[in-house]
């Protein structure tokens, strides 16, 4: 549980540290003109950005718990390490490129360059779909090699972790599809900017998660 505790510790420390800074040296029983002028938002960010950031904390918790479960289960004597298919390296490269492409699209959207959005979104989406396809092929390879899910906990964890990561990406692709349709039906950069920016954050997050998961799978 150490990994979970460390990651949740960081999240809780950030939250609590921030709250404490808002609450120390405040005397709420005194009616202060300075307080009366405070507007409703605590953070200088769009509401949806705050929502997404909160969701990323939840997702971090999910993946951290899976990783903790993996490390705890690994210590049992029936664990037989799995040799990951080399295809995963190729898939990782695809996901890195998808992240880069999304970032490029985001820059275009911020810069108001509507004409770059179509190729940007198309390439990001395509690379992501290729990544998911690659993961699927990796599954097929393993199953063809006789590494079934129930044969060993290492196999089971491999399928489980890749599936959970893939499902998160699919959720991202749903938002991607919505902004892509809007761009194709003639939306301006400004109207899809936020959606693309948030997707970029999400893609980077899932890339980080994948690198952590892949690193863990490789090293054990």
């Amino acid at each position, binding site marked *: 549980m150490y990994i979970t505790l460390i990651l949740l510790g960081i999240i809780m420390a950030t939250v609590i540290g921030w709250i404490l800074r808002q609450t120390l040296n405040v005397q709420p029983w005194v009616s202060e003109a300075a307080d009366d002028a405070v507007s*409703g938002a605590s953070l200088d960010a769009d509401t949806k950005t705050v*929502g997404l950031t909160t969701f990323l904390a939840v997702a971090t918790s999910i993946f951290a718990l899976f990783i903790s*479960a993996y490390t705890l289960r690994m210590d049992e004597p029936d664990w037989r390490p799995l040799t990951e298919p080399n295809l995963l390296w190729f898939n990782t490269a695809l996901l890195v490129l998808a992240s880069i492409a999304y970032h490029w699209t985001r820059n275009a959207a911020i810069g108001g360059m509507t004409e770059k959005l179509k190729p940007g979104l198309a390439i990001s989406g395509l690379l992501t779909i290729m990544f998911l396809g690659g993961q699927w092929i990796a599954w097929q390879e393993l199953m063809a090699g006789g590494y079934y899910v129930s044969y060993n906990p290492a196999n089971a964890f491999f399928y489980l972790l890749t599936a959970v990561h893939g499902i998160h990406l699919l959720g991202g692709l749903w938002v991607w599809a919505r902004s892509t349709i809007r761009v194709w039906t003639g939306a301006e950069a400004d109207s899809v900017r936020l959606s693309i920016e948030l997707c970029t954050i999400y893609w980077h997050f899932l890339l980080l998660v994948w690198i952590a998961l892949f690193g863990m799978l490789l090293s054990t």
Partner: protein
Amino acid sequence: MAYVSIADRDHEIEHHDPQTFITKYIWSQDHKVIAIQYGITAIFVGLIALGLSVMMRMQLGFPDAVALINPENYYQFITMHGMIMVIYLLTALFLGGFGNYLIPLMLGSRDMVFPYMNMLSFWVYLLSVIILLASFFVPGGATGAGWTLYPPQAISPGTPGIDLGILLMLGSLAVFIVAFTMGGLNYVTTVLQARCRGMTLMRMPLSIWGIFMATILGLLAFPALLVSAIMMILDKTVATSFFMPAAIAAGESTGHTGGSPVLFQHLFWFFGHPEVYIVALPAFGIVSDLLATHARKNIFGYRMMVWAIIAIGGLSFIVWAHHMYVSGMNPYFGFFFATTTLIIAVPTALKVYNWVLTLWQGNIHLRVPMLFAIGFVFTFTHGGLTGLFLGNVTIDLPLSDTYFVVAHFHMVMGVSPVLVVFGAIYHWFPKMTGRMYNETLGKWHFWLTFLGTYSIYLPMHYLGFLGVPRRYFAMGNTEFMPESANTLNAAISVSAFFVAVVQLIFLYNLIVSLRKGEKADSNPWGATTLEWQTPDTPPKHGNWGHDLPEVHRWAYDYSVPGQELDFVAQTVPASEAPVGRDHGVTHE
């Protein structure tokens, strides 16, 4: 986004004004309607769980008096009673119900920041409830694994409902977590980003602080339940061995190898302990507001109360293994978790002191919500004190499998939050419905419930000391149990039936008052917080009419010297009612 609820973007509010009956009451995006939908659903399943506990008490007090109750469905009743009460009633009611109702109203927003997702949250919650209840009717029945669902027995032959029952239970939990996450993102973001002008964090009522911190805990802790549910579903359906050890059932190998049941316990309690505070923190917050309002006095140590909520939230993640002292874990772990458990008692005790000190020299009005709030201080203190016993490894070991534990967690996590639920419903009923309830019936409801629950759970501690084991369908002729223990069990059961029946007074009062109650004033208690300052009672869609409120002070300006009224609403500017350093609000 349908609209933003921040003062400066007022022009966008008309966007999702409901037009038809369906958008107004069924597919509603209005936080108040969603809150009531959550509340009614939660109370409905809560009544089912209450019925289940009556059946269990029937068997325990009068063994085999009802032929219908056999060991299998006794275990199904235990499981469903626990799960429903903890998750589908209390979590849903405090956060989905009161969270939804109070956050926008107390913070001066027009609605939650993501109203569509908020609506979805309720419907997904309802789906999870339907899946859960469906498990009673599938072949094999509901799961009887106990509310903790420990493997291997949860999915091994011999336990009721190991086929569809357990899968529906795990599936329902997963769906519930999705619903909670959608709601939780809303609550956190609304508290952070959609308060009205002047509502600084430290001017928020403590109810909101409790709900806010509980939501953060829920968002971070529920994933542990999700992860363990997914892994157990896989163990059951595709024969993985995450949790299932190698075992032989009915002469055949189950196909599992070397899984770790203790891993499940770690994951489950990593969720399970924060869950206690997910339920307790909103109750703490609401009680603070009820006490201050009905004692006409500012809450004692507001900042301490806020920091205590934060401290409890942080500490609640590092006490989980005190539920696992008997799992055979390393004794040093036990020592560590006993220490953290005792440490978390410090901020909790601090809150109890502050509640008592709030009452000290207050102008106490013993109205129904106040009775329930004071009742909570009693039951919570008692439940908390037995927690200090059980938090110590050496005392926990002999008591762990006895009724002492049952009595402890029912006092601290059953009776206490439920008293707050009642108090809160009585307190906000006039605002929610625009009508008053019958005060006399409310007082009868309180006294009978309060004394009744004590007569259930105080003797139960004694049964625990005698060593009467929990979870047993029938005690049989056990040597160490004197005959008086059986008599006591019967008496406890009679009290339990009595308390269950008394709840009909509550339902009757609510339903009749809804139609025939006296019309309520917009602020019958003379409360300072924003929800009592709405232009309409009950508040209309958008809550605030044309202009959003502005806040100029904290929520606890009661009995301010030199003021005509004994409360100053949060919207009153400093110039009209100066309060602060030089004016001495604390001078009585």
